[in-house]
């Protein structure tokens, strides 16, 4: 019984990880890519870790996987926020289907969003 639960959780986690990478490949701009990849990868990795905890079922393993899961749940949103903020400040292009950009007035004067020097600089890297 425990093996079946573990297998089901593992497959669900792998499906979510696959969805995250498809979103990373197909979404139109940086922020949508990060939106899909962070959410789905957190869920996928978390489900796989829970599956390992269910499979082994010992106190040491459960505490280790739960510690990893708590750490992932805490740090992935922070990392995504820091990276998104840096990307917006650098002037990463938004998708042309964007309807609303509330940050434009607040971060706008500091950087020149028409200036594509940043993009050209990062293009070759």
């Amino acid at each position, binding site marked *: 019984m425990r093996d079946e639960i573990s*297998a089901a959780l593992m497959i669900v986690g792998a499906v979510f990880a696959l969805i995250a990478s498809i979103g990373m490949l197909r979404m139109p701009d940086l922020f949508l890519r990060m939106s899909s990849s962070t959410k789905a990868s957190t869920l996928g990795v978390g489900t796989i870790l829970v599956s390992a905890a269910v499979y082994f079922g010992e106190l040491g393993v459960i505490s280790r996987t739960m510690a990893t899961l708590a750490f992932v749940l805490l740090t992935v949103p*922070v990392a995504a926020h820091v990276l998104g903020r840096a990307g917006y400040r*650098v002037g990463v292009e938004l998708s042309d289907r964007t309807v609303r950009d509330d940050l434009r007035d607040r971060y706008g004067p500091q950087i020149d969003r028409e200036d594509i020097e940043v993009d050209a600089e990062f293009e070759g890297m």
Partner: protein
Amino acid sequence: MTLSDVAIYVVLPMLAVAVLLTFVRLMRGPTLPDRAAALDLMSALGIGFVATYAIATDQPSLLDTAVVLALVSFLGTVGFALYVERRV
């Protein structure tokens, strides 16, 4: 079909395809933050790989690697973000 068969023949190939798709974004991705996000996703997928492999080989001590990978990937992403912001 045992659990280790499920892990080896179903879950690990799916994770490998996910890493390949992310690698395409890492190669293509027009700006540096795109690449940093792709690397972050790849290290998250690496945590999944390690956990799945621990189940497949029935060795729980491999899970320590997952903890270390989670720590290092967070530091790496934050470092990349600070570097990107500092360059402007």
